[in-house]
């Protein structure tokens, strides 16, 4: 694979920094860049089409045990960016002068270079949008196409160089039947395939037909439920909110600290790991530390590990495992179970088929109790057959129950769910999760 111009640019930036350091100084530099097309759709038409070319450098300067970070935007032209990069370096030097030593400072000194480039020739976004709009004819389609290359780079004064470049696309869309009754779908990957998209669309239209049936409103109570991998993504997402963080566990702020202490447990079929090797996030973290291929977090229902950032490791005398400062999983992997997905409805028998959950939050973090809403195509099932769509319902229940005593089984098939968030930049996180059948789930409103 040829070196992209942005990769060559980052090499020039690192060279400039290497030449500009004063004696005793150390730098790390992270590049976050992308050239993205975003096309927003509503009612089967284009609402907002556009493109974003952005390049950020996060420059971290260390002198002795003092350090500071500055993030700047750059043009991507090494000549034009020389002055702002040197100005940032000067600003950091001035900042360091007034700082005390940091007892938790940690940076990588062993050189672990890496290079991942996955950039296949991609169809122009305009061509893909034409295909999507043709498919949307006569349908109430709403959603977002996002595509293009995303670049992550790391360099430091010890000579480490890491490069991660992936060109991908993601189409997230909903087909609406009426009001809030809709089927949500996603199609993403590295090269657009018309046949794959057509199959996704056919699945969505099948779901849409079921939504045409009269909806059923269920009262508060406990219901047997099947949670699809998409619904499980929301629950796992809450566990990722500090749950696996080494720092949050040490300070008892993690929703899973009772699991770690042994005063709560999950079903023996529940295992989680941070599986960098099989995810899509970079294998190096922001400070340049390499990540292990896999970090076991929960094994057979018991907590066996956590995500530990080098700074947390210093503070609590732990061993770090390449976590970023947030200590949030970026490639969370939940072990598959033994229930064939095709048998999930039969195993549910009578209860709720929940395709999506929405807007979860903690109602009692210490008890790992969550609340949230059902959303999109969720159905009432009787005798293993879908009977009717259900109006949205609020649940309020503990993960220690849902994935503990109430867990009937996990599916043997899992889905790779790529995070479609694009706050500030396109997200590179993913989860690989099974579906789950639960005996009772508490609904309150």
């Amino acid at each position: 694979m040829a070196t992209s111009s942005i990769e060559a640019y980052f090499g020039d930036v690192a060279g400039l920094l290497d030449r500009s350091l004063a004696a005793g100084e150390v730098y790390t530099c992270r590049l976050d860049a992308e050239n993205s097309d975003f096309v927003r759709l509503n009612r089967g038409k284009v609402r907002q089409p556009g493109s974003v070319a952005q390049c950020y450098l996060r420059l971290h300067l260390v002198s002795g045990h003092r350090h500071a970070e500055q993030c700047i935007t750059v043009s991507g032209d090494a000549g034009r960016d020389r002055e702002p990069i040197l100005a940032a370096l000067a600003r950091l030097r001035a900042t360091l002068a007034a700082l005390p030593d940091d007892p938790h400072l940690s940076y990588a000194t062993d050189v672990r270079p890496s290079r991942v480039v996955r950039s296949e020739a991609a169809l122009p976004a305009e061509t893909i949008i034409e295909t999507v709009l043709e498919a949307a004819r006569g349908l109430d389609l709403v959603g977002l196409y996002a595509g293009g290359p995303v670049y992550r780079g790391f360099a430091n004064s010890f000579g480490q160089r890491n490069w991660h470049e992936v060109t991908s696309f993601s189409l997230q869309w909903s087909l609406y039947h009426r009001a809030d009754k809709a089927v949500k779908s996603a199609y993403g990957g590295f090269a657009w395939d018309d046949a794959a998209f057509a199959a996704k669309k056919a699945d969505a239209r099948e779901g849409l037909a079921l939504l045409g049936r009269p909806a059923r409103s269920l009262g508060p109570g406990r219901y047997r439920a099947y949670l699809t991998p998409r619904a499980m993504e929301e629950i796992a997402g809450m566990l990722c909110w500090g749950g696996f963080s080494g720092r949050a566990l040490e300070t008892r702020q993690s929703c899973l600290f009772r699991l770690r202490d042994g005063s709560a447990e999950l079903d023996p079929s529940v295992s989680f790991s941070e599986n960098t090797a099989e995810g899509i996030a970079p294998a190096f973290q922001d400070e340049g530390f390499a990540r292990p291929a896999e970090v076991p977090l929960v094994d057979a229902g018991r907590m066996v590990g956590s995500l530990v950032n080098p700074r947390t490791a210093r503070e609590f005398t732990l061993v770090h495992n390449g976590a970023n400062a947030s200590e949030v999983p970026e490639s969370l992997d939940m072990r598959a179970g033994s229930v064939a997905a095709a048998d999930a409805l039969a195993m549910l028998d009578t209860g709720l088929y929940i395709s999506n959950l929405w807007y979860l939050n903690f109602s009692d973090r210490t008890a790992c109790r969550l609340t949230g809403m059902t959303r999109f195509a969720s159905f009432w099932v009787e005798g293993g057959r879908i009977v009717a769509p259900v109006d949205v319902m609020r649940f309020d229940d503990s993960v220690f129950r849902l994935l503990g005593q109430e867990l009937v089984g996990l599916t043997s098939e899992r889905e790779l769910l790529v995070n479609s968030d694009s706050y500030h930049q396109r997200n590179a996180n993913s989860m690989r999760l099974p579906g789950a059948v639960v005996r009772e789930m508490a609904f309150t409103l």
Partner: protein
Amino acid sequence: MADSDRLTLPDPLPLARGADFWSLRLVEERAECYAVRKNVPQPPTLLLDRGAMLTAYADGGCGYAATSDLSPAGLQAALDRATAWARATAGRSLIDFRSLPRPAPRGAYASPGVDQPGRSQKEWYELLADESRSAGCDPRIVDWEATVETRTAEHRYLTSTGGEVVQRYRFVMPGLAVTAHANGDTQTRTLNGYRGLAQQGGESMLDRFAYVGSGRRVAEEALQLLLAPNCPSGTMDILLMPDQVILQIHESIGHPLELDRILGDERNFAGTSFVSLDMFGTYRYGSDLLNVTFDPTRPEELASYAFDDEGTPAEKAYLIRNGILERPLGGAISQARAGIGGVANSRADNWNRPPIDRMANINLEPGDATLQDMIGGIERGVLMSTNSSWSIDDSRNKFQFGCEWGQRIENGKLTTVVKNPNYRGISANFWRSLARVGDVSTVQVLGTPYCGKGEPSQVIRVGHASPACVVTGVDVFGGEG
């Protein structure tokens, strides 16, 4: 700041090359973040974020392109890309942009004290270190942190029709959080929530919120929560303090009134709304006491401005008056689509995202009750303060919210402190049970820099000013143990 370091207009300006109309939105944001955690000064993080968005109308379509390359060639490339998008989608666009006016706004805005020098880095660390030392006052306190983010911003908006708007902002956002743990329970108490203190202007806001001394105060409250019983369950009255009312306003009034949600743009992500276009002018949203305004004119409030990001002049307007729904939160484009009036709230969170309908400052106007009046009028209820949990359905109707701090009200008096106070309800009913609205002495001007919405995703600053409020007959409950 040296003059050479200021954000400058591109020279030459880009050439239209086929666009019927174009606008340039140039954004610069600078931030400094300081923190002292467990008495250890954390390394500072600095930000200098500059970029531009070009928007073009051509052949009835509209496209945008954003770039961090601010050279004339970079901006020209962006305008060409925006124009290409406009042309490529012209026949497929939801909106015929030929029918929309071409704004030519001229004006300026500046936050209070925008050019006044701020504290030095050393002074910030000293202040934060003092509060950190005071907060770590007990072995049961396991984590604590004092933080501040100071930010300045300059937004320039130019149009091919001769419009030019310059808006300069200054923000101060201090924070403080303390976590206590004992006997298998953990309780966190903060100063008005995570980044809940956020205003425009200078550091006088630290005095308005008694930041000095807050470390000890917040720590003592965290320790009280550790010893407190769980919030009782049942149907009762609630007295919501301003730092919870703002969350209630935000989620169950602000978002459902966003016109782009009503028009369906957000249905794939943030959701739709239980409000429909036919409700404006007649729908009873709340009791007679409910008066809610869009107010971009309050100088210290987080989202005050003179023009929105499509150049529409911003003015105060009632959204709900005496409980009746009057107007939506929709910018010029949404207003044209819906055929209904709105406000100047088409906003983008940065140079790299397009404007969409957002809340700005959404305020609940004060009533006439003192805090003592409100407490004295409750026979059985709970005072709740500082949001800690928020969840609402995609139509913004069925909600459940939790707070950090609760205190029972029995026979008109504040009694026991309770932990894990939660309540749930339905927006369409909740505000009709609004029974008392606090007077100006109970008002706090708050906000959040973290309102998420949009595809692609955006997180934006919003302001909310509110008095304390009493709502009757609410489903209240606590935690598990």
